[in-house]
């Protein structure tokens, strides 16, 4: 069997204080090489100040076929939004 090099997902913190955001993937033998490759591929123009790499095989995603049952029920729960409640302007911002 041909040995394959694993895939990694790359997350970058764009600026101090912000959370890491997924930017793409990278092919590398281990986490050390993955971090180096991610730096070279994804941060050549000051895109961020911190990198996380996670083995793609360790990512578990929700099933797209279940998107409707997962997320649609929130659409009719308009009472979860502040604008559902009418507050007179005189009392100030709430």
């Amino acid at each position, binding site marked *: 069997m041909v040995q394959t090099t694993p895939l990694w997902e790359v997350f970058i913190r764009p600026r101090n*204080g912000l*959370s890491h955001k997924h930017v793409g993937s990278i092919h590398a033998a281990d986490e050390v090489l993955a971090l180096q490759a991610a730096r070279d591929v994804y941060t050549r123009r000051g895109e961020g100040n911190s990198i996380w790499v996670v083995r793609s095989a360790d990512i578990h995603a929700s099933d797209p076929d279940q998107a409707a049952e997962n997320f649609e029920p929130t659409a009719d729960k308009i*009472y979860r939004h502040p604008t*559902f*409640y009418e507050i007179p302007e005189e*009392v100030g911002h*709430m």
Partner: protein
Amino acid sequence: MYSQGLIGADGRTTESEEFLARFQARIDAEEKIEPTDAMPEGYRRTLVRQIGQHAHSEIVGMLPEGNWITRAPSLRRKAALLAKVQDEGGHGLYLYCAAETLGVSREEMTEELLSGKAKYSSIFNYPTLSWADIGIIGWLVDGAAIMNQIPLCRCSFGPYARAMIRVCKEESFHQRQGYELCMSLAFGTPEQKAMVQDALNRWWWPSIMMFGPHDADSQHSDQSMAWKIKRFSNDELRQKFIDATVPQAEYLGLTLPDPDLKWNEEKGGYDHGPIDWSEFWRVVKGQGPMARDRIKARKKAWDDGAWVREAALAHAEKRRARKMAAE
């Protein structure tokens, strides 16, 4: 729902002056500190305690309001209350996770809550006696929480600040549904108006105590300010809250139960009467009318849920073993 002026902060720390100066320079430059960064032990300890207290407050805070879900007077109010209490549960979870990034486990924090070692906001040790309490809690208690939490969005510790941004986005609905509920009662029948006035009378003082002791009496608060965990003092936040709330009460035609409350032209804010701190400390230390019930309810939830947690771990272990065997 809410974070109190931290009770019992302890920012003492033993690192070298050089290390502390370097850390302080990062803070002064408004850099966020992340979990893997070097930090003074006192900074870590203060945050673990504060974020833990905050998380516990969100979770215990579900109880007084949860008490009324089945008795909400309409489907509209019931849906709103259910959604609010669900949000508070979520707030607790964001915060526990932020604390866990500092190396403390959820189990340890829960143990400390149940043993009484960890504190939570004193406000939740009061009972919710009538439906009007639900309106008053949204308006005042969530309102006070918002005052406290908005500056925490700029806290120097990254995971806490980011959790607070999420929380603050959700709190606006909490306060508005509460105020709207108060409006419906205040502009309703004389009985309804009396009911909401009674609730206001009971909750006003506990609400302004939520900001914690006066600045002159709050220990270790300077260190928290220097480390930018905290951005405003207890008294500053309390003042902002009172100034925002007085016109809201006037609009409802309700009276705040403080005869000394009056506008002070010179300072451009309201003066208020003396706060009964002996009551505050009694309640913080677990002598509130509901303190035992709250912990009993949390303990029951934790104990009754034990088999579920165990079963889930056992099931995960079984799946892992099966997968390994198949590979």
